[in-house]
């Protein structure tokens, strides 16, 4: 079988192009053209004015995690370890303990998610049999200046509210 050969024209071989300076000025004209246009009127700018203008987060966006609660504010998670078992990044560390509020028998006493190791794949949300973990906080930017503060603990995960209404979240295909 003979290979299909396509001969490409080499650019930059003409005399004008080989003079070099003319092409430089043509390029600069384009650059300064954009610069002046955006300086006078930045409405047509192709990039977002982050962080003044925040992006619109769709419902199905996988943002930072949170743990959901029952209507009375108690944690839904029963520490079944499904999320930890499924986590491909191995970033969830749970410790289970006795639950004494009469809801079930088991609850997490420690629930840590290491955001530096998390790959935001959403398998934990898929695996959860009780809809106890969600990634619907809409938080996409997590910044800090030390490693320890990237490990989310149980109170932090419970304190973050969801960014969407329950109907929108359900409609989002979750």
């Amino acid at each position, binding site marked *: 079988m003979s290979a299909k050969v396509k001969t490409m024209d080499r650019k930059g071989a003409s005399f004008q192009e080989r003079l070099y300076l003319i092409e430089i000025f043509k390029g600069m004209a384009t650059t300064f053209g954009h610069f002046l246009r955006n300086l006078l009127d930045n409405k047509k700018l192709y990039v977002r004015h982050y962080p003044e203008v925040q992006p619109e987060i769709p419902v199905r966006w996988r943002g930072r995690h949170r743990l959901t609660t029952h209507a009375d504010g108690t944690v839904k998670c*029963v*520490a*079944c*370890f*499904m999320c930890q*078992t499924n986590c491909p990044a*191995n970033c969830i*560390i749970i410790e*289970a*303990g*006795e639950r004494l509020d009469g809801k*079930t*028998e*088991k609850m997490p006493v420690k629930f840590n998610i290491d955001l530096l190791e998390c790959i935001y794949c959403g398998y934990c949300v898929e695996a959860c*049999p*009780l809809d106890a973990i969600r990634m619907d906080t809409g938080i996409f930017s997590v910044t800090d200046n030390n490693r320890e503060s990237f490990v989310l603990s149980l109170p932090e995960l419970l304190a973050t509210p969801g960014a969407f209404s329950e109907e929108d979240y359900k409609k989002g295909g979750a």
Partner: protein
Amino acid sequence: MADTINLFVNGVEVEVEAGKNLIDAIGAVGIEIPHLCYHPALGADGNCRMCLVGIEDGRPPLVPACKTPAQAGMKVLLDAAHIKKIQRDVMELELINHPTDCPICDQAGECKLQDYYMTYGRPESRMTVPQVQKSKKLDFGCGVVHDQERCVTCGRCVRFCREITKTGELGIINRTDAARVNIFPGRPLNNRYALNVVDLCPVGAMTSRDFRFKQRVWFLKKAPGICHGCAKGCNITIEHNREKYQDDLIYRFRPRLNLQVNGYFMCDAGRLSYRQENEGRLLEARLNSQIRPLEDVLAAYNQEIERAEKIAILLSPNCSLEQMVAVKALATKLQASLSGFSAGYIQQGDGDGFLIEDDKSANRAGLTLLGIDCTQEHFEKAVQETQLLINFNNDLSRSYAEHELKKLLKDTKVIFATSHDDSLATMADIAIPVAASSEYAGSLINCNNILQTFTGAVSKNHKPADIGELAAKLGSPLQNRAEQFAELRIYLSVLKDFEADTVPAEGLNLNDSEAANVTA
């Protein structure tokens, strides 16, 4: 090899052992018949109906496999439509009142009900009436927690308490869907084997308070081991796991089948002895109570050896045979007097003739085999004559009260190779960490003269040397396990046919061989 017979399973001829019931006979060749209530140690009960199989051209055509002896020429049907329907219907029946709380159930992952649901049919519930509510989280005593809703009333636990322990604490009360397992009022489980019902329970109705919520079972790594709790040497499965950023920890011991030693069971004390492997360990070498690198401590040891005119060495009766020969070779080299004194390990009258022995050490028979003097007079005379005692993990606090021990070791420097940071390690002039029994490989001889080998299961972060390796570092001529095992052949000629890793899994019964009587 027992007699074999030929029979047909789903039209395929298989050769099975004679004299067994269908579940065991066919199960041995790898064809599983689902069953909940049958257990080889407890016999057939025939109440769960999960093992119903068809017998082609037979009368009756349907039989419970647990109650049916395998016979030559039998045509067993397992995959016929009507058998599958029975299995599916039994599953549906069992699950009518099951709470399906697998997410919080410790049995999830090793649950027969879960496995059979996935394998045999996945029936949807057709119930329109509410489920029967029963009691959950009942404390049955001895660390057994019972959940009546999860129970399938197979009666294994009831039969265990009646037939094996003969204590009969459990019973099934009421009938039909109100039937439940319970204790008699005010009379909880009270026997030394109670936690075996947790293993026997095919579902999550019986769970252990000790293991409760500690780990999901699918995280656990399973390794075979030997219990060092007493001279019986029960075969166990060491279930351990290294969690992220943590040390390798043991979460439970479970009995491992060995009909020659312990059968299917083990005692509660041995089962909970896993804690000693995890807790209170000596992690770093110490010289005069200061933590020092091992090299410095070994240098100090060498100075002590030079200085001392006479040396006494004490061995623990829990050491493996390999460790014993290594230390014995060290003692010969140092011209030290070697003792195995460990009277405190024997608790007179504690044994029960079943799986618990008076002697709480794993390898006293090994000391006898190697001809090591275990008498108190010999040990005390040796200590009084010498200025240096090297103690290999022998817990002297079992044999002496603290003031007696202080008096005895008043003028003696003590080098203590120990797995645990106990009061003896604090008293010792030099303390060197060594591996505990779950971390090294070795062989033991149990009280019935059965030699068993085991391999290291746990790999700790700080990886202490085992006593055999340490003895080599301290100057023993036997450098590794192969050399130690070769040395053992002098004492046990039966080992000439074996290497350390080819000793049969069920152990070598030394009573059967003439070599049992050969001693040094």
